[in-house]
Structures are given as C-alpha cells and as structure tokens.
C-alpha cells in the first residue's frame, strides 16, 4: 500500500500538471522528466531485456524514478503504436485498446512487418522501431474511402502482419488466441506496475490517442514521400480519404473515455513537410475538426508539433483558448509563447542534443535561462523536446538538469 505521503505527493504532481494545462501558475513548474533508452542503461540491462522482461523493466523504471523524480515521467520505450489494427477492430471496443501498443512479446505473436524489436529484428541495444512502407497503392484510395475499417481489416492487416496473412486460417485464429492470452497476463502486470509506481508518488494517468487522418495515411499506408506527391497528383482522393478516416479515428480516440482518459495525444508528422497552402487545405481541416469534436466530449488534446511548426503557428489560434497542450520539438518554445500565451499550454524546451552533448555547468545555465523566460504567467510544462535519451547520455548531465529544475523551478 502506498503511504499517505506518497498519495499526497501524487496528488500534488497531478495538480501541478493540471494547473499548467488550465494556463495557470502552479507552485512549481511541472516537469515531465527525461526518460528513454537511458532508463534501461541506468539499470544495466539491454533494451531487449527492457522490452521483453516486464519484471526487469519495472525494476529499471523504479530505480530511475527514485534517483530522478519528476511530475509525470516518461519511461523507456517498450512498445510501438499500431493504429492500423486498432482501427481494423474498431467495432470491438473491448479489443481495440489491446492493440494500442505492440510490446515485444505481442510482436512475437503478431509478427508486424513494420515493427522491429531489440534482440529480434534489430540488435539488443537499439530501441524498438517503426519502419514505414508503402502498404497501399495509389489506385486503392477509392476502397479506403468507401469503407476505411473494412479496407484496413481485409487488405492492410494481412499485408502488414505476418501471422494474420490469411485471416480465416487456423494460423490466424491461433495468433488471435495467443494474443488474448498474452494480453491477459500483461494486463495483470500493468496493474501491479501501477501499484508500484503509486508507492513512489505517481498516479497512472490514462491517455487517449488520435492521429491527424493525413498522418495516418502517410505513416501507415502510403509512406511520407508518396503522400506528398499524391497531394499534387490525386488531390481530391487524398482529401476524401482524410475525411473518411476522421470518424473512425474520432471513435477510436473517444473510446479512451471508458478508461477515464481526458486527454488525447496527437503526434504530428506531415506538418513540417507542408507549405501553409497545402497544410490548410489538406491537413489542418480534419485535424482541427478532430480536436474540436473531442473537446466537445470533454477530452482535451496534447498535440506534439514535431519538426518545425513555425509556418503554421497562427492556425493554432483558431482553436478555443484552453483547448490543450502544444508540445514543441524544433520550434522555439519562447517563440510559441509569444504567439500562444493565454491560449495554449506550452510544453517542451529542453533540447535533447544539449543533454547528450553539453556539460553540467552549461546545462544549469541553460535551464535557468529557459525557466526564467517560460515560467512567468504559467501555462508551461517543462519537458525534453524529444522523449528519448539514448543509452549513452552522460548521467551527470541528466542529474544537472533535474537539479537545475529543482533550483529554478519554484514560482
């Protein structure tokens, strides 16, 4: 059982986070912490062990979080999202959630071609990987548009998933049965993990997931470069496909309400690629609609504006104030604050390249300056611009960042 102090700590941490999202000044700047491959390295285990041995991975997380506490920590990477299969099983809400994350053992069972695991398809010390490919041909847009869920189930799941190639075969049925057995085991372990983390003062915070429909097509079906070319070659079809995917994607995200999620994570990929003209015509309308519809249903969004988002900043202002969190990667959070202050909670700020390559003294100075500019007025969550510190990250640099946050993070 967690002690009353730890329960109180968990509440404080959650409240800090909430205050920032509500654009207020909390007692301290909320800090996500910095996780990634370094969590496994810090415990002396390989990424393979981290992905395939839940007990070892839990011990690694506990060790890391004891030494590096934060408000809502990101652990190491132990799985890869699998939106294709989730959407394919959209009409079976008790199952869709199970497909959300493919962990190591799950991938042994399903055999997803676009996922690679350490100690399996890549070496023991790499992180798990998503490898896109062209799984849908340009002449299949019509089929996708006509019935996305059916198309994904009948065409794309067999193409992408080795052990479900022949959907009606005994092999496929056996795969599904094994999948169910594994999920029952891992579900029980997740509960144990949540209980252990609560003992350290961390509440588990269920989150939902939404993809901009065009990103789903680009990452999972057509491949990025093809999609960018499709925009010029088959503009109407691409637009219709994005529209057709909006409802299924929304339905998927809103299923998260059943597990108590009140925030949807939305990582953006094509934003950096598109000129404002293409962005506003093809990408933003279905993304915006998704964010607004979720908001109506009580679910805010945390949008990860990957790459450079500078050219599209003004469009964020089309959302109502307090819509959620804008998490920035390359776009300078200071610049984001100038444009979005009082409207959007800003997240990010710590350049991971610096944490890898700089020195403790420089990092102290860097965090001090950053917080000095970003904290006033509230509505800011401090986090690394990328959620994965590599194994070789110098521990003294990590410690320097946490110490600096402790020193300079009080309101």
């Amino acid at each position, binding site marked *: 059982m967690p002690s009353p102090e730890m329960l109180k700590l968990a509440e404080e941490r959650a409240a800090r986070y909430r205050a920032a999202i509500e654009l207020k000044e909390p007692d301290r700047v909320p800090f996500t912490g910095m996780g990634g491959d370094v969590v496994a390295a810090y415990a002396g285990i390989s990424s393979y062990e981290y992905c395939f041995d839940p007990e070892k991975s839990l011990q690694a997380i506990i060790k890391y979080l004891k030494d590096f506490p934060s408000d809502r920590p990101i652990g190491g990477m132990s799985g890869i999202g699998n939106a294709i299969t989730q959407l394919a099983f959209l009409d079976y809400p008790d199952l869709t959630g199970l497909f959300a994350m493919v962990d190591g053992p799950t991938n042994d069972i399903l055999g997803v071609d676009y996922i690679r695991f350490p100690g399996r398809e890549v070496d023991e010390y790499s992180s798990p990987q998503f490898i896109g490919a062209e799984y849908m041909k340009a002449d299949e847009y019509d089929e996708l548009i006509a019935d996305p869920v059916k198309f994904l189930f009948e065409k794309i799941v067999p193409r992408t998933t080795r052990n479900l190639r022949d959907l009606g075969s005994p092999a496929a049925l056996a795969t599904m049965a094994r999948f169910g057995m594994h999920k029952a085991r891992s579900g029980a372990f997740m509960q144990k993990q949540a209980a252990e983390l609560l003992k350290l003062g961390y509440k588990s915070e269920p989150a939902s997931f939404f993809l901009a429909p065009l990103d789903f097509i680009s990452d999972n079906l057509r491949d990025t470069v093809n999609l960018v070319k499709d925009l010029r070659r088959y503009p109407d079809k691409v637009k219709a496909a994005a529209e057709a995917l909006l409802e299924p994607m929304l339905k998927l995200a809103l299923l998260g309400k059943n597990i108590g999620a009140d925030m949807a994570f939305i990582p953006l990929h094509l934003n*950096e690629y598109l000129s404002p003209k293409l962005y506003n015509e093809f990408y933003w309308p279905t993304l915006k609609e998704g964010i607004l519809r979720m908001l109506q249903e009580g679910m805010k969004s945390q949008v990860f504006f990957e790459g450079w988002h500078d050219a599209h900043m003004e469009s964020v202002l089309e959302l109502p104030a307090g819509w959620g969190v804008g998490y920035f990667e390359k776009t300078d959070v200071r610049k984001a604050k100038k444009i979005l202050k009082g409207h959007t909670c800003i997240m990010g700020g710590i350049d991971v*390249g610096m944490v*890898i390559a700089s020195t403790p003294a420089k990092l102290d100075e860097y965090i001090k300056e950053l917080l000095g500019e970003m904290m006033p007025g509230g509505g800011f969550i401090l986090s690394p611009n990328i959620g994965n*510190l*590599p194994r070789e990250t110098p521990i003294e640099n990590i410690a320097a960042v946490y110490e600096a946050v402790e020193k300079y993070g009080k309101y």
Partner: protein
Amino acid sequence: MREQLLKSFVDMDEQEAVRIARELVDTDGGAVAVLDTCKEAMEEVGRLFEAGEYFLSELIAAGDMFNQIMEFTLPKLQGDEVTSIGTMVLGTVQGDVHNIGKDIFKVMAEASGINVIDIGIDVPHEKFVEAIKEHKPELVGMCCLITLGVDSMKRTIEVIREAGLRDDIKIIIGGGRVSQAVMEHVGADAWADDAARGVRLSKELLGKE
C-alpha cells in the same frame, strides 16, 4: 525554352517542366542546356526554401522532377559534359532508418555538381570506412534524425580515425538531430539541418565558393 523550363520547374509545374525538357533535350546542345537549367532551378528552389517560401513538399517535388528529367538527359550527355566539383560519400548512420532528408539533400548536392555516393540508411561504421577507401571522396556526409544516431556518428568518426582516414576527408553532418553542440561532440567539421545550407557548406569545404 530555357526560361520556360526554369520557370515551370521553379513554379512546381511538373508536367510542363518535363514536357519542355523532353523537347529541349533533343535540340543541338540541348542536353547540356537541360542539365544546367535544372541545376539552376534546383538552386533557386533551395533559395526559396531557405527564405521560408518553399517547404519540404516543394523540395520533394523538385527532387522528383530533377530525377525524372535527369533520367532521360544524362544518357545524352558526353562524359566530359558532366563535371563534378568533388565527391561525397553519404549515408544515414547506424541505428537510424530515416531516408527522406538524406535523399532530398542528395539531389540538391548532385544538382550543385557534387558527385554523391549514397551508401544508404542504417549504415554500419565499417561500411563508411570501406566506402571511403573505395571512392576516395573529399567529403563524407552523415545523416541522423534520432538521438541514438548521435553516438552512432561519434563512433563512426572514431572508426574512420582509427582506419587512418580522418585527415583525408571533411565530415559534414545533417538531419534533425544535429547542432553546433552535436558537431563538436562527435568531431565533425560542419553541420546543417537544412539541405540548402548543407550544400553551401559542402561547397565551402570543397573550397568552391
């Protein structure tokens, strides 16, 4: 016709650009004209990109047009009509499979007259060494988009040094994870996280500009 080609290329009118190039290439001295015009167009596209008027969507389209046109133009050129200002071995480092940025940079570097030997993605350290021994380039370009790749670049450069090849080459790094700090950390000579700047710096490293 050259002006029309230049204009339709820079304006991203793919069909028109390819059509004019096809026509021009069969005229007297046409192949050289097409090559030069397309290089000029790519340079202009790069400038517009650096100025924030063009985006990756345009760089991809331009690269695609350039490749399409070169496919029927290069075979019509005499050997001495294709001059190169230097050779670069280019690859995405071990552990990283992102290729789009590297491919964009490659076309733009080629269009600027650099002979690029593309050794692919997820390239093991030793493969860089082998390629340097085989092609004797003046430049080595490394692309890295994931944090894991930073250490990979560092080790690759160490392995190149151990092989006694470091002093023969200049190393430029590119991709989303590079910065001045990362450049110093891994021991490269230059860095660029946009292709136009990368081409400019590569030319400087070659002493051309």
